[in-house]
C-alpha cells in the first residue's frame, strides 16, 4: 500500500464537541417531550372525534379541513394520529417499566443469592432470550387473544430478561464493595441489604437505560399492531393505522403519517439514549 495516508483533523473546539456529542440528545429530549404533551392533551387539541365515521368524506387528501386527510372510513387522520400517541406511549412505558421491575427483581436476587438460585434464574432468562423477541411475542399474543392488554402481557414476557441480566451485572459490582461486606458482618438480613443498600446504589444507570428502552417497546408494539395482534379496532393506534393504509398507495397519507409519527418518537428516544449512554460511559466522557 502506498500513497494517501489518512489525515486526522484537528480537534474541534470544546463547544462544537459538546454540540456534536449532546446536540442530538437535546433534540431527542425535545421530541419526546412534545409527544408526551400531545398524548396528554389529545382530547383537547384533536380537531375531530377520532372514531367519527364520515363515509361521504372518505379518503380525502390532506386539506385545510383535514390536515392529514381522511382514512377509508372518512375518519380524520390528524385526530387519530394525536390520539394514537396515547396508546403508543402508554404501551411503551408500561412494558418497559413492568418489565424492568420484574427483571431487576430477578437479576438482583440472582446476584445476591448466587449458587443454584443464580444459576436457575439466569438459565431461565437465557431460555427466553433464545427466542427471537418478535416471534415469541407474536405467538404469545396470538395465544392470549387480540387486545392491548394481552399484547402488553406478551411483550412483558419477552422484555424482562435483558433487564435481569443488566441488574445482575450491576448488583454483582455492588456486592463486591466493602460497604456490602460491612452490612453482612453487621448481621443485616439479605432482603434489607438488597433493598436498602445494593438497589439504591445500582439503580441510577438502570433507570436511565429503562427509560430509553421505551422507543424499542413502542416500535415492537406498533409492529404487533400492524400484524393485527395489537389493538382492537377502531382504537386509533399508529401500527394499526399503517396497516389500514398498506394497500392504499394512491392515498399515501393514510399510512405515511402514522409511520412518521412512530419514526419520530422512536428517533427521539434513541437520540436521547445515545447521548445519555455516552455520558454514562466514563471512558467516553473523559476524552
Amino acid at each position, binding site marked *: 500500500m502506498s500513497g494517501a495516508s489518512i489525515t486526522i483533523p484537528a480537534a474541534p473546539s470544546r463547544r462544537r464537541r459538546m454540540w456534536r456529542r449532546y446536540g442530538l440528545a437535546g433534540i431527542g429530549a425535545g421530541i419526546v417531550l412534545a409527544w408526551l404533551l400531545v398524548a396528554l392533551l389529545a382530547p383537547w387539541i384533536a380537531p375531530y372525534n377520532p372514531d367519527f365515521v364520515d363515509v361521504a368524506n372518505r379518503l380525502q387528501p390532506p386539506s385545510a379541513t383535514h390536515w392529514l386527510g381522511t382514512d377509508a372510513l372518512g375518519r380524520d387522520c390528524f385526530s387519530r394520529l394525536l390520539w394514537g400517541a396515547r396508546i403508543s406511549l402508554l404501551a411503551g412505558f408500561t412494558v418497559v417499566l413492568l418489565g424492568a421491575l420484574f427483571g431487576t427483581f430477578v437479576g438482583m436476587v440472582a446476584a445476591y443469592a448466587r449458587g443454584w438460585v443464580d444459576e436457575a434464574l439466569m438459565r431461565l432468562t437465557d431460555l427466553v432470550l433464545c427466542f427471537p423477541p418478535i416471534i415469541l411475542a407474536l*405467538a404469545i399474543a396470538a395465544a392470549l*387473544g387480540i387486545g392491548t392488554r394481552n399484547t402488553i402481557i406478551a411483550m412483558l414476557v419477552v422484555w424482562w430478561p435483558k433487564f435481569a441480566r443488566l441488574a445482575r451485572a450491576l448488583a454483582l459490582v455492588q456486592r463486591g464493595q466493602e460497604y456490602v461486606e460491612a452490612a453482612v458482618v453487621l448481621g443485616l438480613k439479605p432482603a434489607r441489604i438488597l433493598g436498602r443498600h445494593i438497589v439504591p446504589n445500582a439503580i441510577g444507570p438502570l433507570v436511565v437505560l429503562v427509560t430509553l428502552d421505551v422507543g424499542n417497546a413502542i416500535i415492537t408494539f406498533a409492529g404487533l399492531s400492524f400484524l393485527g395482534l395489537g389493538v382492537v379496532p377502531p382504537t386509533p393506534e399508529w401500527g394499526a393505522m399503517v396497516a389500514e393504509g398498506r394497500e392504499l398507495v394512491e392515498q399515501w397519507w393514510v399510512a405515511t403519517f402514522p409511520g412518521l409519527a412512530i*419514526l419520530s418518537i422512536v428517533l427521539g428516544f434513541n437520540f436521547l439514549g445515545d447521548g445519555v449512554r455516552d455520558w454514562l460511559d466514563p471512558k467516553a466522557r473523559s476524552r
Partner: protein
Amino acid sequence: MLRYVITRLLSAAAMAVLATLVVFLIANTVPGDPVLAQLGDMAASNPQTVAEWRAKWGLDLPLWQRYGIFLQGVVHGDLGISIASQRPVLDDIVQYAPATVELATIAFILALGLGIPLGIAAAVWRDSWVDATARAVSLIGVSSPTFWLAFVMLAVFYGGLQIAPGPGRLDPIAFPPDSVTGLFLVDSLLAGDWETFRDAAAHLVLPSIVLAAATIGLITRTTRAAMLETMQQDYVRVSRAKGLRERFIIFRHILPNALIPVVTLGGLAYANLLAGAVMTETVFSWPGLGRYTFRSAAALDFPAIMGITLVVSISYLLVNLLVDLSYALLDPRVRR
C-alpha cells in the same frame, strides 16, 4: 478447547429441549377451549361427543404425557398439521424457508458491506461530521418501523417513480427456475437463465434494503465502538511510536481485533433478520417464512405458529452456538 466445545454443545441441546417445553406450554395454555373452536356449539353441548373428541386428540391425558407425545413428534419431524393449509407444518416450512434465507442473506451482506466501513470511518474521524453522519444514519435505521419503511419504499420506487419491480419474488408472468436449492438467484444461475436471474435480483433490491436498514445501524455502532476501544490499546500506541503508517495501523492492527465483537453481533443479526422478515415479507408479498408466520398468526393457526416458533428458535440457538464456537477460534482467551 474440547471441553469448552462439549459444554457449549450440551447447554445448547438442553436449551433446545426447554424451548420445546415453552412452545408446548404456550400452545396448551390457550385461554380459549380448543373443543369449542373445533367442534362448534352443537357438538360441544353433547358430553359424549366432547369426551370422544378429547380422547381422540389425547386431550384427556395429563399435561406431561401430552408433552411426551408432542416431543416424540418433534423428534420425528412431526410439527402437526396446519389448520389453514391442511398440510404438515414442516412441509410448509420447508417450502417457504428458501425465499426467506435468500432475502435475509442478501440483506445481511448489504448490512455488513455498508455497516463495517461506516463504523470504521466514524471511529477514525471521531467527533467529526463523518461520525455525526454515521450516527444519524444508524439511528434513523434503527428507529424506522420496518413495516412502514417497506410501504414507503414500495410507494415511492414502485408506485411513484416506477423504477423498481413490484411485490413478490418474480414478475407475475415469469416462471420460477427449476428448483434445486429454492434460492432463485442460485437456481437461475444453475439453469443458465440470465433473464430470470436479473428479474429475481431486481425483486430483491427493495426488500433487502428495508430488511437491512435496522441491522446497518447496529453493525455501524458496534464496529465504531470496538474500533475506538482497540485504538486505546498500548500496542496501537507502540505501532504509532514505531512510525508505522496510520493506514497500516488501522487496517492491519486495529481492525482485525475490533472485528471480533462484530462477528458475535453479526451472527445474532443474521438470526434477527430471519425474524425481522415477518414485517418485510408481509408488505412485499414475499412468499417466505415471515409472511407464513404473519398469516398463521392472523388465522390463529396454532400448529403453524408453534412450528415456526420452534424452528426459528432452534436456528437461533444454532447460530448462537456457531458464533460462540467461532469466537473461541478467533479469540484464544475464551478457550480457557
